[in-house]
């Protein structure tokens, strides 16, 4: 019988721990498919974050390291500078990348560190049970913003792509989403480009994946994906925020 659908080889054949309806599984799969298609599993080294994806080191079949909270880009820098011939990626959430690890994010982008960063933005701290994230929307109810995020009290959510795009350093900064089939397909294209950039020595590529957290948003998976469309994407628009090589070609 013909096999019409199977797990990417770069993904281990074990059950993921993610909640039902969580898009992390989709995003893991996209990264793994890209690793398969580029034939780079044998030389790829992944950096897992602290957060929901903390155990990603068990899910990817390539060599993996578990970084301290927010420090994945620094740890990835140490690896890439030691083994420039390897492909190094980080997989981080919004608390990890945009709060505690903001300095590491900004400076690895500024250095145009030749690494690939997969940034999953679901506007909440998932692993610790639903606290306000640096990307939680104005008015968003979380465990630590029970009356809704008051921007006068705790500030505005951070638009990471827009901010990083102001830097001279990075090669490729883009935002995608995984709330429908079309967006998932486009997300994969962006992730593939982010890895291809590294292979071509072009430098720092970050793909922000707007995701959902049904469990901590208190929604059904279906409703959560609708909320991505109605509330998240207007604040975090999909698009390419910086693509140095493409900009050069246009000139």
């Amino acid at each position, binding site marked *: 019988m013909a096999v019409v659908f199977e797990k990417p080889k770069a993904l281990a054949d074990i059950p993921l721990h993610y909640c039902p309806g969580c898009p992390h599984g989709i995003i893991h799969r996209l990264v793994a498919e890209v690793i398969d298609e580029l034939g780079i*599993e044998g030389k790829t080294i992944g950096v897992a974050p602290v957060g929901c994806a903390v155990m990603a080191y068990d899910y990817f079949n390539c*060599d993996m390291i578990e970084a301290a909270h927010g420090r994945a880009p620094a740890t990835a820098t*140490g690896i890439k500078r030691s083994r420039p011939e390897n492909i190094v990626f980080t997989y981080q959430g919004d608390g990890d990348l945009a709060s505690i690890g903001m300095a590491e994010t*900004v400076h690895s982008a500024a250095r145009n560190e030749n690494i690939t960063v997969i940034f999953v933005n679901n506007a909440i701290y998932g692993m610790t049970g639903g606290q306000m994230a640096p990307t939680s929307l104005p008015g968003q109810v979380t465990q630590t913003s029970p009356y809704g995020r008051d921007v006068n009290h705790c500030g505005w959510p951070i638009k990471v792509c827009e901010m990083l795009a102001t830097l001279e350093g990075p090669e490729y900064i883009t935002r995608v989403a995984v709330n429908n089939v079309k967006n998932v397909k486009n997300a994969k294209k962006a992730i593939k480009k982010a890895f291809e950039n590294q292979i071509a020595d072009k430098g720092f590529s970050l793909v922000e994946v707007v995701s959902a957290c049904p469990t901590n948003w208190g929604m059904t998976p279906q409703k959560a994906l609708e909320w991505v469309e109605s509330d998240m994407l207007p604040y975090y628009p999909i698009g390419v925020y910086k693509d140095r090589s493409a900009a050069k070609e246009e000139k």
Partner: protein
Amino acid sequence: MAERVLMKGNEAIAEAAIRAGCRHYFGYPITPQTEIAAYMAKKMPKIGGVFLQAESEIASINMVYGAAAAGVRVMTSSSSPGISLKAEGLSYIAGSDVPALVVNVQRGGPGLGGIQPSQSDYFQATKGGGHGDYRMIVLAPASVQEMASLTIKGFNLADKYLMTSMILADGTIGQMMEPISFEDAEIETYEKPWALTGTEGKRKHNVVNSLYLKPDQLEVKNFERYERYKVVEENEPMWEEYMMEDAEYCVVAFGIASRVAKNAVAAARAEGIKVGLIRPITLWPFPKKALAAAADKVKGFISVELNMGQMIEDIKLYTQCKRPVALCCRCGGMIPSPDEVLESIRKAQKGEF
């Protein structure tokens, strides 16, 4: 005769690291260790190495973590407030069992403290600093020669035992110049089958990790690590004894304080006081046996330290408080004169501890 060169302590560390095969340095500026970074910035690009100034101490130690996991000899250097920031990474490096060399050219604290020499990070270096059960090999140079030789030794030990070696120096030795030789340096190399190199499709993936959510697994990991630490404690203590053969009193001092203490011991001998010196070279593992043996023959100890009295606790612990221990200390960047130490020795002889 071995060729000798005149070098600053900090530069001796940097040159020794390069000779030990270190080609990766990640750091952040702080006084008084600046010369290490400056030396690396100049040399590394010329020998195919990497010098990278990180955005923070935290980033630099996590770069060290990544490079160590990738299997290369790697180091960072800092001074006291910067080491506090690195504590997070030190804990992760310990929990992941990867080797690294970290230099602390100590300055006075707490807080921003000062920029003058100090030994007030003894507790931080020997008792933890970061969270969790872990140890670091702590090497305390007392000369520019030892800045070099202990750096090379530190790399060897780190690779051998898969842990961090810390050079616990101070601003004085960092800044002073002495003639040194590199010729007797022994560079050891170790296989690193655990390193992140890419599987090349030939083996199961390597994972460098400090997370164990199952308590029984985490406990076993800690047990295994402490078995390794036991071997270090058995095999690696280093110390120097000076005029201890017939000593009735024992001064204990490390690093720059030991040089002042040595002068005071010689002066006390000239006065007819039978006093000697034990200088721990490894602060962890602490030279327990030397102290225990001394406790069986001397009448008392004098701990000379550039802090408010930190090593004195280990002296009491490892002599099981068999003899009284006096404290002769200065802190904040102040250094005791040989006369101050001599006075402490005289007092000890009179039974004043």
